[in-house]
């Protein structure tokens, strides 16, 4: 399996791309990372993801897999013999993991954007909603170490990457996520103790600089 060429079309601040980096690191799989410029998309990206033209894209033996959660499932299936699986084996537990990862996708990114790029009443409403969403995730975590139980799993990988953006949300939104969701922050710190997570997430201050640059580029004040 590892003989076949594996390429990740990547973007360092993308919380979606980070998920794939973690999964590949967890499984100890070697791959080539190609950094994309979203303002100058490569011909390879346009060819491999013609429908959405977005990253991440995993190219395995010339065939492309798109959408980060779908890529995670693919990695889990192809390299099922490597390391503990991301998804549980029981169908009901799997359905719950998929449900919560989908919840993260539906809720966090849209609201997160309104927090760091928004202002006034829109931003205030977005901050409130973000906290509610994170509290809901805390409820789902309960007393477990990780969403996956004793070790990180599908939902942990889906959610932890957004935490690299928390410093940006807090600074531009002028609020503290830790004050409202201490359990979730404690969970994120546990995740960061894992090498696969620590080396896949950029430093939050670097994300903040990238966000400031994006605001300037898009003329958001």
């Amino acid at each position, binding site marked *: 399996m590892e003989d076949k060429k594996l390429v990740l079309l990547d973007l360092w601040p993308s919380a979606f791309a980070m998920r794939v980096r973690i999964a590949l690191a967890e499984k100890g799989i070697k791959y080539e990372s190609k950094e994309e410029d979203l303002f100058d998309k490569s011909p390879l990206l346009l060819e491999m993801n013609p429908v959405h033209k977005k990253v991440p894209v995993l190219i395995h033996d010339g065939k492309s897999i798109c959408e980060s959660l779908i890529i995670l499932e693919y990695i889990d299936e192809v390299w099922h013999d490597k390391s503990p699986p991301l998804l549980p084996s029981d169908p009901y537990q799997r359905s719950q993991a998929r449900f919560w990862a*989908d919840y993260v996708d539906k809720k966090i990114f849209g609201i997160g954007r309104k927090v760091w790029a928004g202002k006034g009443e829109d931003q205030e409403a977005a901050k409130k909603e973000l906290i509610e969403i994170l509290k809901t995730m805390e409820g789902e975590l309960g007393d477990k170490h990780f969403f996956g139980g004793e070790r990180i799993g599908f939902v942990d990988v889906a959610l932890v990457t957004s935490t690299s953006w928390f410093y940006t949300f807090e600074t531009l939104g002028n609020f503290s996520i830790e004050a409202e969701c201490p359990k979730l922050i404690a969970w994120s710190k546990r995740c960061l103790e894992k090498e696969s997570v620590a080396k896949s997430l950029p430093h939050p201050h670097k994300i903040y600089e990238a966000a400031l640059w994006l605001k300037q580029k898009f003329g958001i004040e």
Partner: protein
Amino acid sequence: MSNLGEVVLLECWASPFCMRVKIALAEKGVEYEARTEDLYGGKSDLLLTSNPIYKKVPVLLHNGKPLCESTVIVAYIDETWSSPPLLPASAYGRAQAKFWADFIDKKVFDAGYKIWICKGEVPETAKKDFIEILKQLEGALGEKDFFGGDSFGFLDIILIPLTSWFYSIEKFGGFEVKEECPKFSAWMNRCMQRENVVNALPDPKKVYEFVVRFRKMQGIE
């Protein structure tokens, strides 16, 4: 094939998302109790406790344990009752099926909604966007009889229920899918030869009456 316990589906007749689950259960020969939610009344206590996050149908209860989100439910049905398989056998085939299911979920219903909710004339862009989405799906279908290949499968199940709303979209949009996308229309006809599909889908004219009534209630007529 054993039923493997008690199966209850919280549903409503007009929801294409519920139709997906009905088709999947029928394909697997699973007997279930359908409990219909009142579209115009309040939501049942069972629905509110089983799906506290979204409070929506479909909800599948298997031995009392709730499952929400139609794509998650259909995948669960495939994994729990193995025959006949709905998803492709290969990891890559499954990734492709899930990619297009995600595309369908992100695009099709909303594009149709933008047409049938219009007050007055439907903008050309709305019609163009809808047709373009169907053409992209035609591309994914290619020369195959079904999205699953020779046999009807996961992706066909995800998509065919949405077509029960096409009559309404065509009436308000002033176009016909069979003129604009003949390949797509041919695929629809092949699906409608299947008893499990016919049994799960309502008469499109009944959906149209529902849409007309919905528009009146929103003050659009």
